[in-house]
């Protein structure tokens, strides 16, 4: 006989940012329907306000310790709050960079912003997931938004191709992830990460291992770790830069969070197993990403391969398998998003109506057009290469330190050697910026808000590089 259990109203407070964001997206969507093309700015402004408010709400709901609600399927811990704030701030920068680019290409539609916000919602759900279903829900919300965003420039053949490729491969990866989750569910009898954690020790190792492998496959695809990286260069290259900005930045933070939730919150009992797999993924990503990037002439493809190598480093902290290691990886993911959004922001800055600054050649002679942005480009590239005093250096130090502390000395050595290889292609961009003569003398036409945001973004890379203490402490303390 089915007993009528008491229906307890869940605590909504921890999910306030998500609830607010969802309501606002619906409002914006409706408002946008009634807007004429010339007043599209209202959607843009509303989206920015929504993101800022969500970030503030995340700050306001910052928890002392982990809180779970909705029967454990939603977790709010310090890590989640920090990552959500980071995601909101990064996407604010994305929207600001994207606005003029969209206008110049006649794709300045409300859909870009609403889809973008839905994606943010998906990411926030992933970050806070306490259940396999919540993970999957957030992931699909993010992915479907991104597929549609890429395809928005529907006259473009490369964009359609990129969207198609991403959709098919993304669907396969999601399927793999689900398959893995179903196996784990079959053995442990639960979808809840906390219950899985306690059930791992008594579970059948063989089935669990299979489940784990499929789950890691799904994670690796979303992160873009070798050998599941094939989609990244094509999608980064094919998408309009306004969308590449989006894909390449905040979702990596969410992917890190997904990895943490699944592997540490859920399957930490199988740490020895996933460490082995992640080490291989990490080494392959760092080496392959950096080596192949050398051969690229298209800067979007180059940055795609650079992302792959950064993913290898993000994995390194998780491999370390300590609280400090997760903190280091989280720090790396945030730093990566800051650098990546700035890098693609530079491409938008140099692009103008009818001209895509897609090749490294297009950066030639930037120092003669604008010494200021030449310097920012240099800061971004050197930061990605991991040269002090820029921010990227500390991200590398943090994960390397944890890898060394946990005894993965060989992994750390492979990492630094790969980053020497990587330095070459970053230097090649700096060479184009500083040492070469400009191909044409068209001045930079970007508007003031892009210039300002990019300046702030670039200066953040330098300033946080000189004083990274606050950010590092924040990330590390999130796991204690």
């Amino acid at each position: 006989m089915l007993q009528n259990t008491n229906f307890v109203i869940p605590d909504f407070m921890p999910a306030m940012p998500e609830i607010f964001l969802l309501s606002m997206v619906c409002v914006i969507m409706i408002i946008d329907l009634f807007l004429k093309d010339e007043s599209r700015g209202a959607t843009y402004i509303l989206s920015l306000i929504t993101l800022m408010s969500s970030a503030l709400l995340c700050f306001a709901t910052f928890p002392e310790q982990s809180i779970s609600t909705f029967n454990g399927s939603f977790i709010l811990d310090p890590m989640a709050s920090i990552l959500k704030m980071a995601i909101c701030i990064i996407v604010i920068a994305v929207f600001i960079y994207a606005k003029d680019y969209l206008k110049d290409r006649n794709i300045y539609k409300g859909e870009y912003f609403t889809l973008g916000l839905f994606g943010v919602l998906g990411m926030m759900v992933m970050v806070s997931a306490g259940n396999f279903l919540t993970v999957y829900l957030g992931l699909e919300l993010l992915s479907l938004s991104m597929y549609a965003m890429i395809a928005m420039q529907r006259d473009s053949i490369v964009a359609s191709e990129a969207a198609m490729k991403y959709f098919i491969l993304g669907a396969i990866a999601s399927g793999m992830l689900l398959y893995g989750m179903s196996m784990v569910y079959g053995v442990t009898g639960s979808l809840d990460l906390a219950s899985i954690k306690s059930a791992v020790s008594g579970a059948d190792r063989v089935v669990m291992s299979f489940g784990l492998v499929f789950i890691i496959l799904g994670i690796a695809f979303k992160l873009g770790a070798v050998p599941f990286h094939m989609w990244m260069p094509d999608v980064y290259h094919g998408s309009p830069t306004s969308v590449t900005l989006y894909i390449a930045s905040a979702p990596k933070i969410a992917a890190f969070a997904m990895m943490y939730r699944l592997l540490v919150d859920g399957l930490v009992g199988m740490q020895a197993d996933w460490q082995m797999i992640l080490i291989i993924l990490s080494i392959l990503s760092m080496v392959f990403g950096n080596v192949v990037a050398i051969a690229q002439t298209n800067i979007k493809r180059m940055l795609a391969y650079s992302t792959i190598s950064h993913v290898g480093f993000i994995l390194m902290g998780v491999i370390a398998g300590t609280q400090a290691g997760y903190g280091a990886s989280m720090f790396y993911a945030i730093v990566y998003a800051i650098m990546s959004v700035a890098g693609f922001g530079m491409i938008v800055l140099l692009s103008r109506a009818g001209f895509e600054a897609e090749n490294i050649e297009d950066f030639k002679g930037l120092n003669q057009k604008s010494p200021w942005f030449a310097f920012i480009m240099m800061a971004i590239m050197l930061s990605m290469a991991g040269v002090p005093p820029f921010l990227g250096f500390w991200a590398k130090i943090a994960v390397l330190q944890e890898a060394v502390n946990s005894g993965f000395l060989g992994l750390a050595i492979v990492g630094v050697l790969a980053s020497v290889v990587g330095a070459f292609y970053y230097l090649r961009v700096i060479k184009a910026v500083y040492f070469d003569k400009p191909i044409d003398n068209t001045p930079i036409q970007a508007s003031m808000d892009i210039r300002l945001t990019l300046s702030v973004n670039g200066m953040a890379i330098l300033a946080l590089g000189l004083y990274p203490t606050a950010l590092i402490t924040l990330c590390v303390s999130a796991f204690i």
Partner: protein
Amino acid sequence: MFSNLPLLSLVIWTPIIGGMLVLATGSKNSIEAKVLSLLVSLVTLALSIPLYTQFDSSLASMQFEELIPWITTFHINYHIGIDGISMPLIVLTTFISVIVIIAGWEVISYKTAQYMAAFLILEGLMIGTFAAMDAMLFYVFWEALLIPMFVIIGIWGGPNRVYATIKFFLYTFLGSVLMLISLLYLYMHAADVNGVGTFNIQDLHKLPLALNAQILIFLSFLLAFAVKVPMWPVHTWLPDAHVEAPTGGSVVLAAIMLKLGGYGFVRFSLPITPDASMTLDWLVILLSLIAIVYIGFVALVQADMKKLIAYSSISHMGFVTLGFFLLWKITDNTGSASGAVLGLEGAMVQMISHGFISAAMFLSVGVLYDRMHSRMIKDYGGVVNTMPAFASFAVFFAMANAGLPGTSGFVGEFMVIMAAFKANFWYAFLAAITLILGAAYTLWMIKRVVFGAIANEQVEHLEDMSGREFFMMLLLALAVLAIGLYPAPLLDVMHATIDNLVAHISVSKIP
């Protein structure tokens, strides 16, 4: 009066902030940028003088220390201080930087503000490297100074500058990253031993280490510093970088950046891994002797003046590394370590002296290059007829480079050779050969360039040095003579520190 001023920090940050101000003046009005840069470099020089005058040379400990917590999560501190080893190098840096600013005065017309700013920032970063007492702070300065140098060679360099500068950057970067891993390992090891990790260099000096760990750490340090010095066989970036760099770049590279490598050996390799240094001292001695002799021969056949001086630099730096690593061979041979102090001090004097002489040699080539736009020896001949003042300076510095007694070049080499005698006759014999070789390649170059009949029409129309050029040469000549005739003030400040260093590295650190 000024005892509360963070003097050392001022010396580091004045040029860096000054360089940013120079950048802010923009490239429109280059005279403003130049005057401001000169002012900044002079202020920095003035600030660095109290570091010498107020230095207590009886102490071996760190002086002018400053410690501010920086990145607390990893126990990284903004910890700086100087001892008898780093102080002379810092004063050398501030001195050479003034010369470099003057050297670029009329020559650099393209983006003058950026040029001057890059050198000022570079100056600050180099001083920071010498002053850093925290290993991670050291690494930050050490790597960061590649950036301005990369830009200097790449923008204002010769025709093949892009190749040279990328090679320079990657070579040094590759050398340093393994050192980084070693530092991270030491941090972790300190956490194991003391309960708390540290990057404090002096604490790392005391950290006990097993021999096999020491050997690996030593090798990673060796790679980092050998690339910078540079030692054979990782020296190949240097001739390229020197040839392509603008005159100021070559001067800084030879006079100061090479010294960073030598400094690294005394600050890191010897005290942190003394037992590995003892085990592997033959390796460093061997590489040094190869550099001294073989590179000397290579210098002999160069047709390009800058390349010749670059190879001569490598050869002279061989004395430095040789002097650093003689300790154990001397102890084996004579039973006491007293001769080792001579070797180390000789190597230090050689570093300072080479800073002045190589700067002067590259400036001499720069003087000729600005007039003729050629560095090839064959394009010259009989310069003495049209440029007598220049010729006298060129001959003087050539003599100093060859190690003529009375010049600073003699003091350091002589001390190292004396120490080498105590270690092994053949070391001294091979090292002394260089005195002949050095004289041969330098004087032969001078003979072909300066003396003889006027080679061609261009040489006939050369004008002698301007007041600016004369002034730079005079300053350097005075410095070379001063150290050559009376090296005692220089030796006094480093004596206590080096005694202390020798005492430290003579004791095994194996737990």
